């Protein structure tokens, strides 16, 4: 709070220094907020009070000027077809012509400061759970405008769709991660200015840049001409993620010689008020040049990257949070020499370069082609240890509940030990080395090992992409009533997955062997080797590792996809329709670069076979080395959209689409770190999506209402966790997951008519996102080719039953199924003030499949009881939450050429720290019971939303 006051004081001082009177007419340029393209023939009406002073239209280049105005405060109302109405206040003084620069019209959505940084980096370890956020961009959509920012704090997902269903393009190239499908916002976080210009469509609508799916498409332009002209600088501080963001950008705009240049740099630094150990030390750079040769040919080039690191937050059980009296407790960090160190740090530098060619031979045809290349490093540190105690402070054996439980069947009945553990956690400040990672101990253990072999190391898991993309698209107005868009795309992705020894933590070396295998196969040392060929070539020696060395696993995920799409838009008066299709081919496979002792496969030749025989190495059907079989998919999709405009202000439209998509690499390999094996019978994902919409835009009123229904079938996923029952690292591959999402979206912004410039705004998202199938599961363990469970049904995935046999539906997790916001927005004389009350309900915890099997509900005695089903299969529903947020902002023009402004967003004014935003069930069970009749769950882990927090942005432009 002190920092906030200081910032305000500085701000007010600056304002006081600059407060002077200025005069003039009014001029500027009307642009589309998406892409900064000029808006021609926009109607600008200048009002003074209720009196209409002047009416002009913007020129072809979007410019306008209203001269000869008397001093005073005016309201400039801007209207244009297909854009939201806009109005701004302008003060005219002393005969000066006020240059209002760009006046933005929202065409398809509004842009906020929302980006990937708005979401904490959750550390889900290898759990297989996905908590990647989706980001709603505004544009001309009133729902997205409000929900996009306000709902981000609870990681709201529009219509319950997952991150990978949101198509994100850069310069016309689809950039969703080739391996996971996740939206790639982190690649340009911190480059808000460079990436500000974007165009978004919702749901199943078709964009000019790509066919898209059922969860919208955002194309970020990213070229120099789309960066705001001039020099801008901003200082931002927030209290939930990083302390300080410094950003500067400069863009020349179009120059006489046809060139345009732009640059953007930023730094995000420091910790935050809520989560210890989470910090940023991230930087960003962006350089771009455009060359407009003539009205037909344009080339764009950009190169950018975001080198840096950020500490991640971990989930803990409610027991830990309660003991610590802090739902923001983060078990990832500890003191080293009295300093805070986070074990889980994401360290990335993945530069992107693209070259784009725009071809506009006529008003009726425009085309573009882009080559884009992504490369670099993406590392994520974690602790690794060999034959040593688990260093995680919240490891379940360190918690009071491990020693005592009121349920005698749990076999935890030592109250004295419970008391000690309770004392430690309740008075954590007295025991920092037990309630946080004890780095000093890790170093000290390493220091006393014979020969300097580290027991503990910090590893860095890499997912390094080489991602080459080509995309071409065109837009052709074939006739007055028909416009055809289409494109081709190709992608070659080669992602190397490996880990390195990042830090030996004071030791001298580490060995490249499999801990779990050593426990089971100590008598067969070749089985322990992560690099069997090294072992064979070095007379049975395990590879000695030093810092920077690769170890453990090393494989390539190879992905190829090619496709094309076409869409026709037909306009007949007020009625329009679009129909389009997409066809593609996708192939992926794993290519092991190491031969692992547990899964050596077959010898390559007779010499190798002889060597293996001599060593006693047994060949296996499953292999860790070489190429897996290729998973090939023919993908296709079709869309139909109908649109009818009623009376100029209202629009009714509907979309329907069917999609046959390939699953992602990470959803089909059982254990890609150890072998080439895939889930049996991989199926393409089939999605049917439909929506009906009504939109009103006029007289200062904006409303959109949507009903939607989506069905997604044949999804799969792989989760990994340590399984106590198998005493091994275990993989759970689930297939045949179906879901349906249906519901209502409503967004509105309406003048109050009671107070000038005051609007009532709100959104409602009410849906049902539920599972509809009984999937199948296969469980394997990393240290054996044995299949623990083969293709078993998960009968309680779709629903469970209470003790009375009543059906309990199970839902998609980690997003509220009911989200609502109601607030007031005030705009006057460059001030804006917003205040909203929000409600979130019906949010559910991510389920693990193991608890929904007959195996788990039967228990060790193989006897299923209603009580076991009710207990084991129940899905947790989070408590609903009410939040209050507010924003205020103001900008000032100084000496006709400078603009100084600020915005302050304050979230969670009620300081509610009990709002769960996500989490997961641990994939392990308590089996050491007294009765030996049933299993018990391990406690679930959760993430919580920060309490009261703020973001203050001060910017300066000239």
């Amino acid at each position, binding site marked *: 709070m002190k920092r906030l006051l200081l910032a305000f004081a500085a701000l007010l001082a600056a304002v006081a220094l600059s407060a002077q009177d200025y005069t003039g007419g009014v001029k500027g340029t009307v642009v589309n907020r998406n892409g900064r393209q000029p808006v021609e023939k926009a109607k600008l009406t200048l009002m003074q009070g209720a009196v209409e002073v002047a009416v002009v239209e913007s020129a072809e280049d979007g410019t306008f000027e209203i001269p000869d105005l008397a001093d005073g405060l005016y309201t400039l109302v801007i209207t244009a077809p297909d854009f939201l109405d806009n109005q701004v206040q302008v003060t005219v003084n002393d005969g000066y012509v006020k240059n209002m620069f760009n006046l933005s019209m929202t065409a398809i959505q509004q842009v906020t400061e929302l980006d990937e940084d708005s979401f904490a980096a959750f550390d889900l370890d290898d759990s297989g759970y996905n908590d990647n956020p989706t980001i709603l961009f505004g544009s001309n959509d009133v729902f997205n405008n409000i929900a996009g920012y306000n709902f981000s704090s609870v990681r709201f997902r529009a219509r319950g769709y997952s991150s990978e269903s949101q198509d994100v393009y850069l310069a016309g190239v689809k950039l969703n991660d080739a391996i996971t499908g996740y939206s790639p916002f982190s690649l340009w976080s911190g480059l808000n200015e460079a990436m500000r210009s974007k165009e978004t469509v919702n749901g199943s609508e078709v964009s000019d840049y790509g066919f898209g799916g059922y969860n919208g498409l955002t194309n970020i332009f990213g070229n120099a001409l789309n960066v705001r002209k001039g020099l801008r600088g901003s200082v931002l501080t927030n209290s939930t993620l990083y302390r300080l963001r410094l950003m500067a950008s400069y863009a020349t705009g179009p120059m006489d010689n046809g060139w345009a240049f732009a640059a953007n740099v930023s730094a995000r630094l420091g910790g935050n008020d809520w989560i210890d150990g989470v910090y940023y030390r991230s930087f960003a750079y962006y350089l771009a040049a455009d060359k407009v040769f003539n009205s037909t040919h344009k080339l764009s080039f950009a190169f950018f990257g975001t080198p840096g690191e950020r500490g991640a937050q971990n989930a803990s059980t409610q027991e830990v949070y309660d003991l610590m009296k802090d739902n923001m407790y983060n078990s990832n960090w500890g003191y080293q*020499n009295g300093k805070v160190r986070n074990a889980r740090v994401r360290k990335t530098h993945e530069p992107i370069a693209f070259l784009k060619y725009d071809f506009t031979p006529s008003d009726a045809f425009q085309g573009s082609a882009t080559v884009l290349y992504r490369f670099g490093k993406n590392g994520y540190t974690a602790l690794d240890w060999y034959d040593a105690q688990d260093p995680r402070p919240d490891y379940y054996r360190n918690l009071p509940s491990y020693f005592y439980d009121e349920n*005698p069947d749990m076999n935890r009945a030592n109250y004295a030990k419970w008391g000690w553990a309770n004392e*430690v956690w309740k008075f954590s400040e007295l025991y920092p080395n037990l309630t946080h990672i004890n780095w*000093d101990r890790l*170093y000290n253990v390493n220091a006393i090992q014979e020969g300097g072999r580290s027991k503990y190391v910090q590893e860095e898991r890499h997912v390094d992409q080489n991602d080459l993309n080509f995309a071409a698209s065109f837009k052709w107005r074939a006739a007055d009533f028909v416009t055809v868009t289409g494109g081709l795309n190709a992608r070659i992705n080669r992602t190397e997955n490996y880990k390195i020894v990042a830090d030996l933590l004071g030791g001298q070396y580490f060995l490249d062997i499999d801990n779990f295998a050593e426990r089971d196969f100590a008598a067969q040392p070749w089985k322990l080797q992560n690099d069997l060929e090294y072992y064979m070539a070095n007379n049975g020696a395990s590879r000695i590792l030093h810092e920077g060395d690769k170890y453990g696993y090393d494989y390539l995920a190879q992905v190829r996809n090619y496709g094309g799409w076409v869409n026709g838009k037909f306009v007949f008066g007020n009625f329009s329709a679009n129909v389009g299709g997409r066809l593609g081919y996708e192939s992926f496979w794993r290519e092991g670069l190491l031969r692992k002792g547990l899964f050596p496969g077959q010898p390559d030749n007779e010499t190798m076979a002889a060597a293996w025989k001599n060593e006693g190495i047994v060949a296996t059907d499953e292999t860790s080395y070489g190429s897996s079989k290729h998973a090939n998919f023919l993908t296709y999709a079709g869309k139909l959209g109908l649109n009818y405009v009623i009376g100029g202000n209202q629009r009714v439209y509907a979309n329907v689409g069917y999609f046959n998509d390939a699953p992602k690499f990470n959803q089909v390999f059982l254990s890609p770190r150890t072998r080439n094996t895939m889930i049996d019978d991989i199926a393409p994902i089939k999605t049917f999506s439909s929506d009906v919409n009504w939109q009103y835009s006029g007289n200062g009123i904006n409303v959109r209402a949507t009903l939607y229904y989506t069905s997604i079938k044949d999804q799969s996923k792989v989760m990994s966790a340590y399984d106590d029952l198998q005493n091994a690292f275990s993989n759970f591959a689930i297939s045949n997951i179906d879901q349906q999402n249906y519901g209502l979206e409503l967004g509105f912004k309406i003048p109050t008519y009671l107070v000038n410039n005051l609007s009532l705004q709100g959104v409602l998202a009410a849906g049902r996102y539920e599972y509809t199938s009984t999937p199948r599961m296969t469980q394997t363990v990393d240290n054996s080719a044995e299949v623990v469970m083969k293709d078993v*049904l998960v009968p309680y995935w779709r629903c469970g039953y209470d003790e009375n046999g009543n059906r309990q539906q199970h839902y998609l997790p980690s997003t509220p199924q009911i989200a609502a916001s109601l607030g007031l927005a005030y705009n006057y004389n460059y001030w804006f003030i917003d205040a909203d009350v929000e409600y979130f309900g019906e949010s559910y915890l991510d389920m693990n499949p193991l608890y929904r099997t*007959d195996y788990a509900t039967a228990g060790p005695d193989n006897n299923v009881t209603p009580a076991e089903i009710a207990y084991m299969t129940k899905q947790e529903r989070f408590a609903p939450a009410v939040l209050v947020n507010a924003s205020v902002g103001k900008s000032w023009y100084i000496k006709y050429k400078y603009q100084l402004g600020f915005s302050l967003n304050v979230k969670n004014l009620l300081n509610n720290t009990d709002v769960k935003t996500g989490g997961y069930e641990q994939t392990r069970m308590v089996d050491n019971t*007294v009765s030996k009749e049933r299993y018990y769950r391990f406690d679930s882990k959760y993430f919580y939303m920060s309490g009261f927090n703020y973001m203050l942005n001060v910017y300066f432009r000239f």
Partner: protein
Amino acid sequence: MKKIFIVLSVALVAFSSCKSLKEEWDPVFTFGENKPAAMKLYTEQDLSSLGCNGFTSIRDLKAMYKSGGVELFGNIWIKGQVISSDRTGNVYREIYIQDETGGIDLKLGKSSLYSDYKLGQWIYVKCDNLTLGAYNGMPQLGLEPDSTTTNEYETSYIDSQAIIDSHVFRGAFADPLTPAVVGETELKAALSAGYTGELWGKLVTINGLKYGNEIFALLYPNPNLPHKSGNPENRIFLSDGGVWGIDTWSMSKAKFIEYVSSGAWDAAQVGSGSTRYGPITGKPSDYLQPGKVLDSFGTDAELTYKEIMIKYATANYVSHYFKVGSVDVQVRTSGYAKFSDEVLDSRLLTGGATCSITGILSIYSGAAQFTLVDEPSVSVKIN
């Protein structure tokens, strides 16, 4: 313009001068040289500041034992040097320390203790609030027993790190102790002394041991189900003479399956005492029959005991009998030991050779039992 920059600069300086911010910028560690100070190794002088004014010998400590276990109170400290290691997996969640008067099992309850407690290192134990008990006659120092209905131990593992940190203090490193060499005479004396025998819990070498061609193992067909003496159908004893085809020190899960599958145990009887269920090739009667046919696992009712054993296979310990003179010494090896599947030297198995074995000697139900600390290649020497 200049003034604005000045004001903004002042604001920035103000931000970064806040105390909490200084802590925030500076301490976040990002790799490099920042090693902590060396671990604190306690001296006896250090312990005096913790209230230690002298040490009780391990022999005197053991003498405090009473049947059922005794909780220790007051200023009782012992010291000793570490003589066990769980590196090979044959000792688990405990360390043995030894002074000149004897050795004792310290039930720390943590895994991979050899990473923290090195052979020969001095250990000081504050016994206040710890419990001295025994398991089948073998003295142990742990914590008060769990109050579960099935508990059969006089002590529990200490295993709460806060208790360990406040009761167990690591001292100077020193060379590993040389084992005491004992023979039949010393063994007989110790056995006749029972619980107070000085050899129990010590590192010893016994010379002249001869393989007894006999093993002992207690197997549970389904270890997930209750398998105590009240559930005899889930118990199979491999005993009553002979080695049941077992020639390894113990058996990993894979080795266990191999042994069961070989048919060498087909004659083994299910049950114990007078309650017998026939050989393992038979089908279970009632206890092991499940109540529901499961999609994923089938039903145990359709399986024989032998098939159930394979289905629920785990690693298992084995005790091999040796003799020195007329005294039996069981060498008990965990199925989780890294050398579990190692075959005993053929000169012992069939050649009648004698050997010297080094390990931790303990008493188990009135008999001498040996636990190897190192691999057999180190611990077992053919004479």
